[in-house]
């Protein structure tokens, strides 16, 4: 049965056209993937479906009735639930309170029935085989991964006939991703429509029956997944043939150790980590979520309270504060996990963001030199191909361009040790390619790059070596041309991949 039929959907934001001809058809019993670069319109489209945004034009029919909702709760009422990458959880409420928020079981006195809520949550978890979660805990105490799972539970609690998953796997680890993917298939098999957005073609191939591709605000094609190859998909998404996503990997590693880590330890999260990052190499970090990688990066950037010894370009350093490492060319720079909340001042201009960590480069005696600043900014915008003007507020940029601003910010510090934590998360294919090329170029220039990605394929293609984390330790370091996914996976989970 056809659940959604949309044609000519249009949306403008001031002078910008986000969507000019969006079309989509989804029926019950399928997993239907939406693909497209950031800014291509697919995000706008599903926001319209979810009720957070109103279209300017177009005809949408849902369940054979005309569709017109003014807010998210109305969309939920007709059976559409969405899980967006930007979580909608309430930090100070518990897991159950978040899941049942706005539709809690009520007693005759109009108060929330806590016991009934807990039971309903357990039932929900059991029905969909959720990973275990600490229920009574406030959501702010959960890891990002756990929070994403709560968000999914929240969407499912409304028993939707149409479930939208927008980049829902990007915060999940390997096992949880598999759980979600199989959940999506099961939901489809039970008669629902699952609309699935992901930048990972591997996942799309795994579960999607059909794909609809957006480009530049319109729908350009619809395919049955098994019948189409990756190159065509990417060509449709980008409007051109893309030679390769992954750049040529030219080894540039020297024998100088840029960052030497010995016996790094932090509670139970990091246990005796030993690592050498060489000048000119890209060292990949692999591991399931929660196995210490994040703590490693934070500690190296001065944000943890780890013990151990760290040598930067041969000299011992103590790390208590990012200021200890953001010391210019002899220092370390970080591209953080959460670019919107940790990496960028969204209300400030591109220029101000780019220069924030490197103000000393254009100031003397505390006074800033606007001309020199402008020159540095212009140079960075051009070399990174950032599609923005310097005075534009960074919050209005697309995800890919925002990430480039963060890269630019990092590069302006002239630090040659770079820590990149999942830099391509939620970024479109085109920008990803640019970032990988940038990383290889930098390694050729003698930069030392530590690179974590939850996408093993990326690691294999971009990194020179891969250090695998498990249980807070480095359990294996893989190098050489012949690394394949299986080896990495095996080291990560110690069980043979099926």
């Amino acid at each position: 049965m056809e659940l959604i039929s949309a044609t000519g959907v249009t949306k403008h934001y001031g002078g910008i056209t986000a969507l000019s001809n969006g079309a989509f058809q989804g029926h019950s019993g399928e997993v239907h993937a939406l693909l497209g670069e950031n800014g291509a319109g697919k995000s706008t489209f599903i926001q319209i479906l979810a009720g957070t945004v109103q279209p300017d034009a177009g005809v949408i029919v849902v369940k054979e009735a005309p569709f017109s909702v003014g807010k998210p709760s109305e969309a939920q009422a007709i059976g559409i639930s969405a899980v967006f990458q930007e979580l909608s959880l309430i930090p100070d409420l518990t897991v159950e309170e978040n899941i049942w928020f706005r539709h809690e079981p009520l007693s005759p006195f109009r108060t929330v029935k806590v016991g009934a809520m807990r039971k309903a949550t357990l039932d929900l978890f059991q029905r969909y085989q959720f990973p275990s979660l600490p229920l009574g805990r406030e959501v702010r105490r959960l890891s990002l991964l756990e929070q994403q799972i709560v968000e999914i539970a929240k969407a499912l609690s409304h028993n939707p006939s149409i479930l939208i998953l927008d980049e829902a796997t990007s915060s999940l680890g390997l096992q949880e991703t598999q759980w979600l993917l199989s959940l999506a298939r099961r939901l489809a098999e039970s008669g629902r429509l699952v609309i699935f957005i992901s930048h990972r073609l591997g996942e799309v191939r795994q579960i999607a029956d059909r794909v609809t591709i957006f480009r530049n605000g319109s729908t350009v094609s619809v395919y049955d997944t098994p019948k189409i190859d990756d190159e065509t998909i990417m060509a449709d998404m980008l409007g051109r043939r893309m030679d390769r996503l992954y750049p040529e990997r030219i080894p540039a590693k020297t024998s100088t150790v840029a960052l030497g880590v010995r016996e790094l330890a932090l509670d139970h999260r990091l246990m005796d980590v030993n690592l050498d990052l060489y000048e000119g190499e890209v060292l990949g970090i692999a591991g399931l979520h929660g196995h210490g990688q994040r703590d490693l990066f934070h500690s190296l950037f001065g944000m943890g309270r780890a013990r151990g010894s760290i040598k930067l370009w041969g000299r011992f350093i103590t790390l208590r504060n990012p200021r200890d490492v953001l010391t210019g060319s002899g220092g370390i720079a970080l591209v953080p996990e959460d670019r919107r909340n940790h990496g960028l001042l969204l209300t400030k201009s591109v220029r101000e963001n780019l220069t924030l960590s490197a103000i000393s480069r254009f100031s003397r005696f505390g006074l800033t030199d606007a001309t020199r600043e402008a020159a540095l900014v212009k140079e960075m915008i051009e070399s990174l191909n950032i599609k923005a003007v310097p005075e534009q507020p960074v919050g209005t940029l697309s995800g890919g361009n925002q990430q480039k601003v963060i890269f630019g910010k990092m590069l302006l510090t002239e630090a040659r040790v770079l820590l990149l934590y999942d830099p391509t998360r939620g970024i479109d294919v085109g920008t990803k390619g640019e970032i990988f090329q940038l990383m290889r170029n930098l390694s050729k220039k003698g930069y030392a790059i530590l690179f974590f990605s939850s996408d093993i394929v990326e690691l294999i293609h971009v990194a020179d070596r891969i250090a695998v984390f498990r249980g807070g330790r480095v359990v294996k370091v893989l190098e050489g041309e012949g690394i394949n996914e299986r080896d990495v996976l095996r080291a990560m989970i110690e069980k043979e991949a099926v």
Partner: protein
Amino acid sequence: MIAFRSPEGMDARTTGAEEWRTRFEDRAPFLVACALLMVLMAVYGSLRKNVFALEELNLDTAAAMTLLLAATGQTIVLLRGGIDLSIGGMISLGTVLAATHFGNNPARATFWTLSIVMIGLIVGMINGLMVAVLKLQPFLVTLATWSILSGAALLVLPTDGGSFPAGWMRFGGASWLGLSSSVWLLVALVLFWLWFRKTPLAVAIRATGSNERSAYLSGVSLVFINVATYGLSGIFAALASLYLTTQTGTGSPTIGKDYILPSVAAAVIGGVSLFGGRGGLLGTIVGAFIITVIGNLVFVLSVSSYWQPIASGVILLVAVLASSIAEKSARRNLV
């Protein structure tokens, strides 16, 4: 495809002991406040006889009640993540309106009682509308409405004065089953809170204070929540002004400003977070009593009454530091 396997991949940090420790850390400010109150009462008790008798309870509750009522409204606003400075003006306005209009006619007194509460509600709702629709900062909006209400109070009654019917004044001293009317009011307040905090509205208020955007995305009407929050605060400010008149018997156009910051202090001492989303009225009640008992102590110790604000200030800092340390250690587990 990889066979799914439980907890290895997830943070299996939940041990029973951890659970209790985080619970404790959450409640820390409230518990510290309770401990503080007990210490103060003990000191107080050593200086005066019969401190733990019923009579003392009646007196202290009566002394604390105005602040308590004001702080109740403020608690709700703080939970929403805002602040209400206009209660200063509302309390002043309430007392002067009552003082000049009650006359000696019970019917008129009743009418004006209801009117004052209505005014509190309406002004509060306007506050809420301006915050939600015009997207103005609560601090600024309520600062401005405070000024407006204070000005109105001055226009109604330029200097302290006015009169109240005898019956009204008797309310303050009335008692039932040995407990004064203020103690019964306290009981009613506690019962109200125990019910209110479990209503979806209260949950939504806390949620909006915790993360406004998430609340909106989850379907909360920001307009409704803000109007309800500030409306409730206005009602309680009005009630506070009315109660105050039963204690003082006069209307004062400037009395309100003395209640603004203490109402925030009482809530904060009791564990209500200034950022919204956390805390409750029970803590505020403890906080209000702490402030009141400090006043008593200062009086009994015969030191200059100027020590009271110092003591309050120091206690406030200590309470906040304690909860800040507890919070920081809780957050360490997350990074």
